[in-house]
């Protein structure tokens, strides 16, 4: 078409009138174009215009978002205040704890020093006590042996090692110590030579004398006092007992071993000679005392009352005469 128009214009203007335009009025595309809605005016398309239409909503949204912001800010500020409070408290307690901790550390150091010193003192004391106990043991052994030897020199009846009840009752500890030593001694002797121990037993028997019972306690006292200084007569036995007891308690292991070894021999030795003598002696002494009393009383009961009356009368007479 263009080329035609151009050629028409260039060639001859008259021919243009004759040119027939093909209108688009009847075309379908024009119809379609007509059906399209018309464009909105440009004024209406600016953001201001758009928003001016929904100004109410826009305002509301703005207000709402402002409110949201306010709410959030409020929340955050309250939260921050709370956090600040908590933090403050935490710092305060932290400072307190720090002070407390420092105090405790000081105390700890002090206690540590004192306890270490105490422990040193205690260990020193313990070692000292151990040494002293050792020396005590060494001292106690010869003491007991001395007592035993002295005892062995006494007549059999007066011995501490005899089974007299008075000895046991009055000097249980001393008695025990002696027994232990005795047992030790015998076991040692037995180990060395069996004969001397046997020969010694009879000799002990031969030494025995039948002395009165009354003497025995005194001699025992002497025996127990011997180790001690002479003049202290009344108190020494108890002290000796105590000392012996303490000495025994300390060196228990050795003595106990000795006693275990010795007990058989001790019992054997005591049983053969002393068993024979001691019971007889006891019975005899008791009997003598009791019989005298009984002899005095018995006739009165057995004989007739007349005899008793006679006796009483004679006694009365005697009294009268004396008067």
């Amino acid at each position, binding site marked *: 078409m263009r080329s035609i128009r151009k050629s028409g214009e260039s060639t001859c203007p008259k021919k243009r009138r004759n040119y027939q335009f093909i209108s688009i009025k009847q075309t379908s595309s024009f119809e379609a174009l007509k059906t399209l809605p018309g464009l909105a005016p440009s004024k209406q398309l600016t953001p201001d215009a758009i928003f001016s239409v929904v100004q109410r909503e826009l305002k509301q949204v703005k207000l709402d978002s402002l409110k949201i912001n306010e709410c959030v800010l409020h929340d955050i500020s309250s939260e921050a205040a709370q956090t600040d409070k908590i933090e403050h408290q935490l710092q305060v307690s932290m400072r307190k704890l720090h002070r407390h901790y420092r105090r405790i550390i000081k105390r700890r150091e002090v206690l540590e020093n004192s306890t270490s010193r105490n422990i040193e*003192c205690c260990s020193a004391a313990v070692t000292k006590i151990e040494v002293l106990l050792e020396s005590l043991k060494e001292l106690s052994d010869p003491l007991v042996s*001395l007592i035993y030897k002295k005892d062995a020199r006494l007549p059999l009846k007066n011995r501490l090692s005899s089974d007299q009840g008075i000895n046991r009752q009055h000097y249980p500890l001393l008695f025990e110590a002696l027994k232990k030593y005795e047992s030790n001694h015998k076991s040692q002797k037995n180990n060395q030579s069996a004969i001397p121990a046997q020969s010694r037993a009879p000799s002990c028997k031969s030494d025995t004398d039948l002395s009165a019972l009354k003497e025995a306690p005194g001699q025992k006292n002497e025996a127990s006092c011997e180790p001690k200084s002479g003049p202290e007569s009344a108190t020494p036995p108890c002290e000796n007992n105590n000392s012996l007891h303490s000495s025994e308690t300390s060196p228990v292991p050795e003595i106990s071993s000795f006693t275990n070894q010795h007990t058989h021999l001790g019992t054997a030795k005591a049983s053969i000679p002393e068993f024979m003598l001691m019971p007889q002696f006891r019975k005899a002494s008791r009997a003598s005392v009791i019989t005298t009393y009984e002899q005095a009383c018995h006739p009165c009961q057995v004989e007739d009352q007349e005899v008793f009356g006679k006796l009483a009368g004679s006694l009365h007479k005697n009294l009268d005469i004396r008067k």
Partner: protein
Amino acid sequence: MEPQEVAAAAGVHPIELCVYSILSNNLDGIYQSVNDLRESQALLVVRLKQIRNLLKEEQEYYNEEEGLGVERERLEELELRVEKLTQKYKKLLADCV
């Protein structure tokens, strides 16, 4: 489904949805950080309380503890006793011999 339809179905205005979508991220962030803060503070409180209890216990222990005074006294007494005993024994032995 169009956003408008979703909003209509939920009974929410589309603008509300828009605002929410814009703000939710930041709000969530704030919420998260506040939560973290609270948790850490709670942890701190608990930890401080534990330490305080421990310190208290130690303090009480130190207050109750009397050291080794009693034992030392006992040992000293024992020492004295043993010394006296040894002296007595020595005297006894000397007297005997």
